[in-house]
């Protein structure tokens, strides 16, 4: 699968998920079962650089979400 196609799979996969806006790296492994974890990791980190995704971090762990979706800045989950 080419990079652009994989990116599309990820964005569509995230858009389908209801009720959650932030995802663990492992959730992306399941979306690209033929890819190795390191390749998926590189891909999603690149998608953050390209501003398709964004990080959310509690400080101890890091999650990913579609840029601008869900909890932003000082908001709480579920708030605009």
């Amino acid at each position, binding site marked *: 699968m080419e990079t652009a196609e994989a990116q599309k799979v990820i964005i569509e996969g995230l858009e389908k998920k209801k009720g959650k806006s932030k995802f*663990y*790296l*492992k959730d992306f492994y399941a979306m690209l079962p033929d890819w190795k*974890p*390191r390749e998926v*990791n590189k891909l999603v*980190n690149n998608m*953050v*650089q390209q501003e398709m995704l*964004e*990080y*959310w*971090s*509690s*400080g*101890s*762990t*890091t999650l990913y979400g579609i840029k601008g979706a869900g*909890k*932003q*800045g*000082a908001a*709480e989950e579920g708030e605009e």
Partner: protein
Amino acid sequence: MKHKTPLLDQLESGPWPSFVSDIKREAESRTKNAKGVDYQIPVDVCDDILGVLELTYVHKRTHWKHGGIVGVFGYGGGVIGRYCDQPEMFPGVAHFHTMRVNQPGGKYYSTEYLEKICDLWERRGSGITNMHGSTGDIILLGTHTPQLEEIFYELTHDIGQDLGGSGSNLRTPSDCLGKSRCEYACYDTQALCFDLTNEYQDYLHRPAFPYKFKFKFDGCPNCCVASIARADMSFIGTWKDDIRIDQKAVAAYVGGEIKPNAGAHSGRDWGAFDIQKEVIGLCPTGCMAWDGKKLTIDNPECTRCMHCINVMPRALKIGKETGISILVGAKAPILDGAQMGSLLIPFISAEPPYTEIKELIEKIWDYWMEEGKNRERLGELIKRKGFQKLLEATELEPVAQMVKEPRTNPYIFWKEDEVEGGFTRDIQEYRKYHLR
């Protein structure tokens, strides 16, 4: 002060240094601004941090929100977003983000460096620091979102300083001062720490793992950075040959000419040094003997506890054939209780370019990235799947040193291809000796 803080004020009343007094002093200094600092975040940030903490004590609930999206471009770690949920009451701490700075090796820095870091943080942050965090980083506490890129630019361009790790990244590697000052150091901790920090920059600055991952480097088994208790991979200096004994110096300790523990306990009269009671009797494996004239050590029984060397450093020295023991899986007690590291490599040479060590690290990461659950530390994965699975992943043969408790952990699970003749038996041959 801007806010009344009767509960916090009590924390200044004991005999110990108080963070409340420190923050009040900084608050006062910011208000006066005697140096004419061009503050880039609210001047009353320190007043407001005390105010929100007082309110937390009154309400007995936190007024900090959980986590955040903030960071600097290109990095997925090093900045931890924190927002206050009473921003109107405490505007100075509406944002109070933390920045983690990758501390210099062995925590050596010049006064000039510290002044630059402090000046930067006074101007663009709260002025409050934590020297150092549990992982070892320099922690800069409290700034606002628009300052993050500015601070990162100044850190990297003016101070030659990088951010450290946070979140699901490789955390800032941390080392003891090693051979730069310590005669116990069995390898160059700073060289290995520096090499791996550079090798794994991508993992340090961008999340790659199910959870945090820590490397720590101790030059000897005294473990001054406590790698054995805290690091997912601990690199602890050790030696293969015998402890070197200077019998004349042993006699000098016994005769009271040299103070034990390099005089560290001289603040009180503990009586004359008793080698039998204070050294021989405390050896955990009982591998030492003193006949009144000569000290002997049964070296194969030594577990490198370092006690005898610490007590009589002028008489006993580490061996000459030095290297590293690698332990894996230590962690603090968030889930499942605290765990000490388990020995994976009893001895490995620590010479650049550290190829074998890097190959091992990457095999462990591959295994953990594949098998680890979300927020599962390496130590928890090893516990869940068994140490044997880690040995398979790292392609290591089991050795006796890996067995922690031989009497309670006696089982070896063989695979069919490891057993001569396999598992299938000739039933006819069996029945010759055993009836149905």
